[in-house]
């Protein structure tokens, strides 16, 4: 047999096989394998990610569980912390020292000194400018008022401008000094006067309303709100936005002291509203509080995220009063981490029991109007005026300290008070 004879024999042996058709079947099987591989790859990827995530979770949990150790000491309170007297409308409140005890309180040192009176000598603002205003007083001569400015360096200067009285008397309000401490504004009949303490430049802006009573600066110290019982305006004193009017009339409010920035606290019993002022939208509601406020005194003065204003309450079960209505300073915080607080200015209870049965007349009463918020020493220390005194309320500790005894009727405070 030759080699060439092998092939015909093999062909003969393989002949009975049918003709196959494998192209479609092979391609389909290839597609199925490809899909199966992709699915497996995806599943494997997901499983790997899951395993990594679980491992990270377990590692994180084990690390957290190792780190979370219950503290063995109670949280420390600030030095001198005083426990609140209770709660009013869900807010902690403290009771201010009674009237007459101010002299014996701890003192908060400021450029105002122990007592605040008109200075005997004061330099001319033209010759000695101030970098930061601590306080503003008014000296009166024959119904004409002249401003006296106290700098953060405890230097007094006087501005050579004569101011007319306004409907309530001296043209000086709590919000007179700008947040940067450079400017001071005085409401005037049909206008507002602004003095720049750093340049001694005085500007007068005319307004179309006679009765204007309060001023309040915006945080940019370039605009001031001027309001009275019939109208409110925003006056541009610095560089403004494109096309901004020098004087813009605002929505009128009946309370001449309510138009304040950046926050405004007002409203009736059970619904006190905190509003934030913006250039475009005016006052927008920030939050509502259930405080028992029947009337408001003075302006809302804000520092950082906290706004403070004094209100008079009708009757409070938490505060015993017999001859007057309790007054409260509400320090309302807009930050979630800082609680809002109240300070009650009540009566001085009788030192001796009454000769006849019945409630004893208090030894001293703080009448509405005697007290209002003046400003802030720092973001957690509010300054307020009570009859004849400027006091400081530390919101963190609840302590009330004396700042100065007032021998003048009106004062406005600026950021320079912190020295």
């Amino acid at each position, binding site marked *: *047999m030759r*080699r060439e004879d*092998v*092939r015909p*024999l*093999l*062909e*003969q*042996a*393989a*002949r009975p*096989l049918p*003709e*196959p*058709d*494998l*192209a*479609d*079947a*092979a*391609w*389909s*099987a*290839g*597609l199925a*394998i*490809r899909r199966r591989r992709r699915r497996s790859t995806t599943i494997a990827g997901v499983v790997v990610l899951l395993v990594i995530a679980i491992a990270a979770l377990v590692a994180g949990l084990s690390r957290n569980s190792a780190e979370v150790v219950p503290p063995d000491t109670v949280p420390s309170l600030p030095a001198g912390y005083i426990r609140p007297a209770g709660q009013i409308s869900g807010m902690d409140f403290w009771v201010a020292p009674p009237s007459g005890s101010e002299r014996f309180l701890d003192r908060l040192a400021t450029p105002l000194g122990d007592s605040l009176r008109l200075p005997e000598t004061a330099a001319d603002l033209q010759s000695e400018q101030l970098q930061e205003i601590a306080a503003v007083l008014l000296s009166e001569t024959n119904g004409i008022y002249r401003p006296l400015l106290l700098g953060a360096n405890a230097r007094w200067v006087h501005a050579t401008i004569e101011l007319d009285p306004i409907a309530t008397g001296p043209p000086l309000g709590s919000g007179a000094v700008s947040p940067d401490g450079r400017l001071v504004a005085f409401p005037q009949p049909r206008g507002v006067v602004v003095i720049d303490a750093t340049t001694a430049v005085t500007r007068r802006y005319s307004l179309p309303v006679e009765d204007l009573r309060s001023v309040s600066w915006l945080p940019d110290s370039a605009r001031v709100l001027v309001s009275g019982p019939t109208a409110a305006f925003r006056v541009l004193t610095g560089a403004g936005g494109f096309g901004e009017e020098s004087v813009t009339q605002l929505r009128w409010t009946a309370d001449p002291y309510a138009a304040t920035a950046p926050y405004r606290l007002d409203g009736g019993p059970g619904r006190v509203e905190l509003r934030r002022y913006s250039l475009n939208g005016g006052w927008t509601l920030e939050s509502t509080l259930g405080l028992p406020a029947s009337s408001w005194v003075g302006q809302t003065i804000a520092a950082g995220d906290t706004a403070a204003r004094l209100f008079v309450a009708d009757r409070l079960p938490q505060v015993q009063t017999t001859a007057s209505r309790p007054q409260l300073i509400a320090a309302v915080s807009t930050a979630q981490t800082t609680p809002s607080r109240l300070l009650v200015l009540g009566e001085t209870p009788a030192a001796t029991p009454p000769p006849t049965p019945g409630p004893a007349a208090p030894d001293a009463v703080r009448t509405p109007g005697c007290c209002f918020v003046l400003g802030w020493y720092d973001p957690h220390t509010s300054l307020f005026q009570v009859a004849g005194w400027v006091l400081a309320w530390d919101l963190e500790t609840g302590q009330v300290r004396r700042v100065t005894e007032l021998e003048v009727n009106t004062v406005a405070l600026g950021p320079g008070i912190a020295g």
Partner: protein
Amino acid sequence: MRETVDPEFAAYVDAREARWLRSAYLVYGEPERAEEQLLHAFTRLALRWGRVDDPDAFVQRLLYQPALSRWSRPKPFEDDDEQPVKAVLTGLSPVQRTVLVLLHFEELTEFEVAEVLGLSHTAVHGHAQTALSAFRSGLGHGDWRNAEDRR
């Protein structure tokens, strides 16, 4: 990989499947196994279609190397013993049968067979001689190396 069969792939398979099915049948001795192996080889080729340099060698390796595996030895022509050729092929070892088919049916060279099966050329040559001798002897032609038979 496209969803429908590639025309070039289909033409390639159509041109070769009949011949390779027959040679696989001679190697494995089972028509089902032969078709299964050939389908497997074409499926692998479909997965890499367009990326294989020598598709013929690729398919042949996948088609014939499993016949040499000791774990899946073919059981050739168990139900068909009428043809003497099949009986002789059954008597050969898997590697001898595969080499014989590739050399004399596929008409590959010994070097090509060595590459397809992953064997050395010497081994292929030895298996080829042995297989051819056994094939001749089984069909009654005697060993070709015997001088008397040559005459």
